[in-house]
């Protein structure tokens, strides 16, 4: 059965589910959530239909960027266990189709954002797609072990776009949210790359644990956590968020720092003994959801 479909690859058009897979729908949940939080924390309230459309555009833009990322990285994805079964390396779709889909979806999301909300938000969305595809995927991912830091900047755009869709501008609070996700990404991703290291090594991606070893990676994780916590706390003393947010951010960040110190203390090189890393990775996802949730709660209950 498998060999039959494999030989008929060129003739059989790709299944629509493979187009969905091309947009990395699982990554999208965090993008949608942080984008929504940025929009809800803004002082201006959008009409519900326009708010829905703005979030849809952020999700589609992220999906377009993911599709273009997979178009460019098909060779690399074929070398890693985790990505080998994606539509392109598995041969279920040809590259040209993925490129057309990605470019089409990019234009669609940006134009719809401009029509539904404002052209400034559409511009920021366009910049975020171009940044992820050109600066991260094409330029830096295969060249520097700081690739994740740059990739984090791409993932940090959603709350800024959400805010811009509501207000038509960007102020200090959305920039702080950008900084928070930007500084959160390296500890989050490096914790993961510590216990799945072998995979990146096989593909020759200069992931920090591959290039500099686990000790340096653990130091970097702990180092990034401190300014991250500062960025998370900053809205409170600056008067951009209330005490409800401030206390939640302080407690969550304290736990994050504590878990990162446990990672720093760990000396294991065997993934089986990397409990602190796995714990930090799991908590980091909860952390981002909780901090952004607290911000929206604070804004709607008190602000």
């Amino acid at each position, binding site marked *: 059965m498998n060999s039959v479909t494999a030989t*008929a690859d060129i003739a059989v058009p790709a299944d629509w589910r493979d187009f969905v897979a091309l947009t990395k729908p699982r990554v999208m949940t965090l993008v949608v959530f942080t984008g929504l939080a940025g929009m809800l924390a803004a002082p201006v309230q959008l*009409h519900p239909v*326009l708010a829905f459309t703005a979030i849809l555009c952020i999700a589609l833009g992220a999906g377009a960027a993911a599709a273009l990322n997979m178009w460019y990285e098909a060779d690399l994805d074929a070398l890693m266990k985790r990505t080998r079964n994606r539509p392109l390396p598995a041969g279920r779709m040809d590259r040209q189709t993925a490129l057309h889909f990605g470019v089409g979806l990019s234009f669609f999301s940006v134009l719809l954002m401009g029509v539904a909300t404002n052209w400034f938000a559409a511009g920021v969305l366009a910049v975020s797609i171009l940044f992820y595809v050109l600066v991260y995927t094409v330029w830096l991912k295969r060249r520097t072990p700081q690739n994740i830091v740059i990739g984090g900047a791409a993932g940090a755009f959603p709350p800024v776009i959400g805010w811009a869709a509501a207000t038509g501008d960007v102020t200090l609070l959305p920039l702080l949210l950008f900084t928070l996700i930007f500084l959160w990404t390296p500890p989050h991703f490096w914790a993961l790359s510590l216990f799945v290291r072998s995979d990146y090594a096989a593909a020759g991606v200069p992931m920090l644990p591959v290039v500099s070893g686990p000790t340096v990676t653990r130091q970097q994780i702990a180092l990034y956590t401190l300014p991250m916590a500062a960025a998370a706390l900053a809205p409170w003393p600056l008067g951009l968020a209330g005490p409800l947010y401030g206390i939640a951010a302080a407690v969550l960040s304290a736990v994050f720092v504590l878990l990162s110190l446990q990672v720093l203390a760990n000396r294991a090189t065997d993934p089986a003994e990397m409990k602190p890393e796995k714990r930090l990775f799991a908590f980091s996802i909860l952390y981002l959801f909780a901090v952004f949730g607290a911000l929206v709660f604070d804004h709607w209950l008190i602000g």
Partner: protein
Amino acid sequence: MSKPDDEVRRRQRSRALVMALALAAFVLLLYFITIARISGQS
């Protein structure tokens, strides 16, 4: 020979269906966006 042909037809049908649903959803969305923008202006 007929088996791959059937597969092609099946794929084409499901893709056409998904495309039709997406287009219908887009038309509806544009309608509601228009209503929202007009009512917001007055």
